[in-house]
């Protein structure tokens, strides 16, 4: 589904990712763990299409050159990023944002857009599953939301958009244990044969609830070690410095 080869990225001449390789097949859950400044967020930024990076190498998503696609086209193809810091958009109702987003994607795919009633039914159902306070759906997007609410809102958007590849950028940071479980439930509910996940995190904690198929350790812009879920435990015990 996603194939990254020899990816290197610079920002203002500072090298962040070097010779980065990763392959994710349909249905797989990959976790990338790494210390601060290892390049984790750069990876999610580049995959989602954020501008400002000097990028070399190749990224294929379902055999299409990802760099030939605009940010929104990547979203239309089924790439979703749960932001580390979800943005506030004053004056825009959360429901309206979600519906606009879902219908923009449906329209790009040539599918039928949802009307207001169909949409509300869907959003209510998903909000209930994720224990997301329905009252917040009527509020301005992320304005006045707590850190945990913002992250849950990302997961709610993910479950409504039902993407093929979901990238979670440190979604677990700053969450209490209940919110963490909700996020994990959201991911696990979407985990199907064809849906893949790339989970970026500092800590092993989230991986207790979402069992990854693969764990990669990212240091200084490179994957230095890959393994199964046991690698996360080993990391927790030894720390990043001693993993090699």
């Amino acid at each position, binding site marked *: 589904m996603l194939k990254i080869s020899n990816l290197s990225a610079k920002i203002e001449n500072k090298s962040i990712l070097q010779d980065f390789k990763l392959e994710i097949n349909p249905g797989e859950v990959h976790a990338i763990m790494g210390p601060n400044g290892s390049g984790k967020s750069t990876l999610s930024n580049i995959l989602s299409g954020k501008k400002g990076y000097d990028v070399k190498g190749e990224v294929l998503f379902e055999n299409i050159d990802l760099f030939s696609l*605009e940010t929104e086209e990547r*979203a239309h193809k089924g790439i979703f990023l749960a932001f580390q810091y979800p943005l506030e*958009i004053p*004056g825009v109702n959360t429901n309206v944002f979600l519906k606009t987003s879902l219908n923009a994607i449906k329209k790009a795919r040539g599918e039928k857009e949802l009307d207001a009633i169909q949409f509300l039914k869907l959003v209510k159902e998903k909000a209930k599953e994720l224990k997301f306070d329905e009252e917040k759906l009527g509020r301005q997007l992320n304005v006045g939301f707590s850190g945990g609410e913002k992250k849950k809102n990302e997961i709610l958007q993910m479950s409504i958009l039902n993407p093929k590849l979901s990238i979670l950028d440190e979604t677990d940071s700053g969450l209490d244990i209940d919110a963490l479980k909700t996020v994990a439930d959201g991911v696990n509910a979407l985990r199907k044969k064809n849906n893949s996940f790339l989970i970026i995190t500092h800590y092993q904690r989230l991986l207790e609830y979402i069992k990854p198929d693969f764990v990669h350790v990212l240091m200084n812009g490179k994957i230095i070690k890959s393994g199964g879920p046991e690698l996360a435990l080993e990391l927790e015990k030894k720390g990043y410095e001693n993993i090699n």
Partner: protein
Amino acid sequence: MRDKQIEDLKDYKYGFSTDIESFKAPKGLNEEVIKFISNIKKEPKWLLDWRLKAFERLKVLKEPDWQKPKYPKIDYQDLYYYSAPKSFKDKPKSLDELDPKLLETYQKLGIPLNEQKRLNGIAVDAVFDSVSVATTFKETLTKQGIIFCSISEAVQKHPELVKKYLGTVIPLTDHFFATLNSAVFTDGSFVYIPPGVRCPMELSTYFRINASDTGQFERTLIIADKGSYVSYLEGCTAPMRDENQLHAANVELIALDDAEIKYSTVQNWYPGDKDGKGGIYNFVTKRGLCKGKNSKISWTQVETGSAITWKYPSCILKGDNSIGEFYSIAITNNHQKADTGTKMIHLGKNTKSKIISKGISAGFSDMTYRGLVDISPKATNSNNFTQCDSLLMGNKCGAHTVPYIKNKNSDSNIAHEATTSKISEEQLHYCQQRGLNPEEAVGLIVNGFCKEVLQQLPMEFAVEAQKLVGISLEGSVG
């Protein structure tokens, strides 16, 4: 062929012109032209005298020059002050007699004049260059005693009302453009709502400038008698032309005891091309008088068009407990300029005013909010709340806020809040990651920014205005 051209005019879809023979007054501004206008409209002598008095006054008035947007000197002798479709010399009695080309024009603009295709229960008065071409739903309104017609017709049929109120809010001597309008005004709408009547539908006037080298000087007069209510909306478009065209309208509103007038404007005059060539000079005087106690006047404006917009819809709060409101969205893109805001003059006791202004500037444009809040010594226990927000896109545009605040008594309150912000790269990236293209993303963010004002518009127009907000900013990102 023409339809194809219209398709191509994506930037300004109302930019087509109608090929229709017009009948004009001789070029220039002089007594003869004023007499010509008055004569063709078969006006009574008092009105001609009134016009001539304005013209006398105009001779000593100077064009104001304190505004921020500067413009090349206008040669007032090089303009036509009256232009009407030729078929209008004898005004058609019904829509069936109307030139099909005119009907077609309004159809293209999305304003069906045919009552069978009723526009969501909105009565429309259509003004083409200098004349009103049709007013719909007259009968329905007449049953309730509501008068909704062109001002020319009102002069003929209801002279006592026109004489009583014309020029009482914007006097002959007011200022250059207002006085110019008084001398040469051609047509516009007239509304009278009798005591205790709640107007059952939105009243709307649609202004269209078609002829070239022609100024449009319309005059609108709305009177809400005791305990009545009316919601009125005006829309405007013009063809794309290389030269600048002047639009200097006067709008007077009068609300008597316990009456309420809600006046909404969606102004989409041709803004000029991307390099700032052409476009309308929109120099308009709009003023409402809350004459009676407990009366209310509310202005809502969405200003997206015109090369230069220069206007301050105002409220004179004369009646005790009267309320004035001003909700504004002004958008400038490319080389457009706007100097707009409001004046709230508190004269009566316990008067309240509220100002919500949202300015958005993009491209090389420049936007000024200018507003006056004046609470007189006798207007005790009054208050004003002002919120002025500016949103900048890119780094070549400007936004300025110039509030004038005068509080002349000690138990009144004035609050002024102002913010300036920018659409961040991060916000755009977030929206794009959710599948919106950059223009949709900007549209969404800007509509969120304007929400408080958009909510004030009648439903059907809020949807239109939302789209217009998006279209006006096209090409401003990337």
